[in-house]
């Protein structure tokens, strides 16, 4: 069963009477366990596509199914629920909450899933150890290096055991060695069965995935396996 299924999906922004199609009739299917990269230059629509796939936004036209449910016309609350349970995000800028420590950042999705405090603590500690932050539970993001911050972000993305993990230029703010480590983590996660969608402008990074989708002017230009 495909995890992601897009059929003729468009995202249209209107500025006055001008119409701008950020995405234009995209058809895309991603199966469970895949490792997909979406590449394209800035303004190509790859971020828009990721926002749709990540349920941060709803399509203007077309049909979108994520994890088996039709979200083409879903309400904000329904989208929030899918984001919470089925999707993990790793952003370029880490997007951690500066006032919270490592564990509190990691447990954030569990808070909105209504998990009890003791269980939140147990799971976030487990995940923190998995991403290699076993000795950093009480640190704040400012006390961590960029690579460690991104590990916290990965931990936060994984804590709800989502079916899809999105990376939006996850190595963009990191030096190349640290970036390598993070990408390695993504590969390992995929090897253990997690579906991963990586958005990047860098073909070298995209090359670690098994399927590359190239976007240009809101359309899928080509698809290839590196």
């Amino acid at each position: 069963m495909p995890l992601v299924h897009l059929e003729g999906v468009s995202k249209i922004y209107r500025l006055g009477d001008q119409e701008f199609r950020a995405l234009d009739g995209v058809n895309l299917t991603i199966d469970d366990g895949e490792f997909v990269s979406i590449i394209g230059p800035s303004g190509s629509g790859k971020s828009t596509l990721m926002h749709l796939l990540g349920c941060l936004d709803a399509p203007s036209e077309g049909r979108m199914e994520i994890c088996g449910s039709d979200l083409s016309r879903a309400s904000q609350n329904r989208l929030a629920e899918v984001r919470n349970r089925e999707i993990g995000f790793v952003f370029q800028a880490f997007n951690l909450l500066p006032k919270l420590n490592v564990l509190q950042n990691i447990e954030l999705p569990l808070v909105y899933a209504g998990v009890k405090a003791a269980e939140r603590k147990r799971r976030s500690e487990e995940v923190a150890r998995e991403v290699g932050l076993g000795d950093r539970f009480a640190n704040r993001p400012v006390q961590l290096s960029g690579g460690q911050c991104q590990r916290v972000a990965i931990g936060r993305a994984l804590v709800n055991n989502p079916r899809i993990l999105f990376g939006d230029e996850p190595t963009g703010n990191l030096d190349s060695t640290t970036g390598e480590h993070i990408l390695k983590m993504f590969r390992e996660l995929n090897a253990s069965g997690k579906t991963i969608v990586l958005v990047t402008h860098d073909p070298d990074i995209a090359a670690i995935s098994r399927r590359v989708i190239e976007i240009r002017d809101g359309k899928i230009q080509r698809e290839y396996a590196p």
Partner: protein
Amino acid sequence: MNLLVALQIGLREISSHKFRSFLSMLGIVLGVSSLIATLALTTGIERGTREFMQQMGGLEYVNVVNKEISNAQFEFWNLSPGRTLRDAQILRQSAPLISHISPELQFGASVASESQSDRKRVTGVFPDYFVVSRQQLAAGRFLTDLDVDRGLRTAVIGNSIATLLWPSVPPEAVLGRTILVNDRPFEVVGVLPKYEREQDKRRREVGGQKKPIGSSRRWDPFRSKNDAVLLPYSTMFYDFRAGAFPLDSLESVRLDNLTIRVGDLDHFPAALEQVRAALEITHRGVDDFDLDTREEWFGQMETSIRATRLSGGLIATISLIVGGIGIMNIMLASISERVREIGIRLAVGARGSDIFVQIIVESMSIALIGGILGVGAAFGLIEVLKAIAPSENVPVMTASAIVFSVGFAVIAGFLSGIYPAVRASRLNPISALRYE
């Protein structure tokens, strides 16, 4: 998201901006403390006034007074016997809504002990007098039917009289002593307590300096109660009044005072009607009496208490609203600072309603903490008020006033949180995430 988590987030946010949070609380602190202080002041005034009303005989107390006869009835003036004991008897029989009737005779006499003497007003009473005037006892007993029936030489005296005649003798020791009224001996069987106004009592307790009773230049409504020399009505008549006018009898002598007590305030107008109807007969239709009630007087007191409370409460409420606006201001600034945080929360699955709850709980927490600080400030404020105006009624801080004020502050926090919370909850996750 449960409220506990929202509360944790809110408290963390408040404590991470302590000074800013304090500034936004300040309005609430001042509003709550002034509201509590106002309520305490009016409660104090209210208690003082009510106690005063009680000691003055309460609303049930009605005085039957003489009235100037109108010109139209002038020729008939001597048809009416005036207020006599017959009035009391007929009221007892035909005015069931009146529970107690107290006819009184009075005259000025020399009152003396072995060593002291003075001229005082002496009153002849029935046992009902003690109920109608709401007298209490410091020692001994009231006059009874037996005293009146047998014309015994017994007396109940007010506290001032006791201290005047026997300085520094406690009330219990005054019992059994002999008081000379115009040189006739009476046995003291009861002593009344010292009646005083709240503020006098407080001045005595706080200031320590004792002003001799009666020297106060201010009007003391309890002076006559404290100065009372009470004798059995019959003894009074036979010893001092019989023979002044040969035709006078116990029944027909004109009373100096006739006061009554209405049994049930719910039937107050009907009771007054019964009294009027009965007295119309004994006075043979001559309109020479009137019923003097405390309704209007007490009503005015109530009205002024209510007005004080309302205006004070209104001013305090305005400052609470200002405090609420302060919170709203800070919350708006705070959410525009936290757009990105909200975006992150939305991205990991927070719903708009979660964000709304978070902001509103934070706003209410600020108000609640401000309210609690305000309660503390109110204690200080009341101490200041006591120091500034010690002669006024004691401010009384009630639990309900505190709960009301803090609750009001929390409501103000809720209301002022709504707009910022709605704005925060409507943020679009994508643009919020991109916000720098």
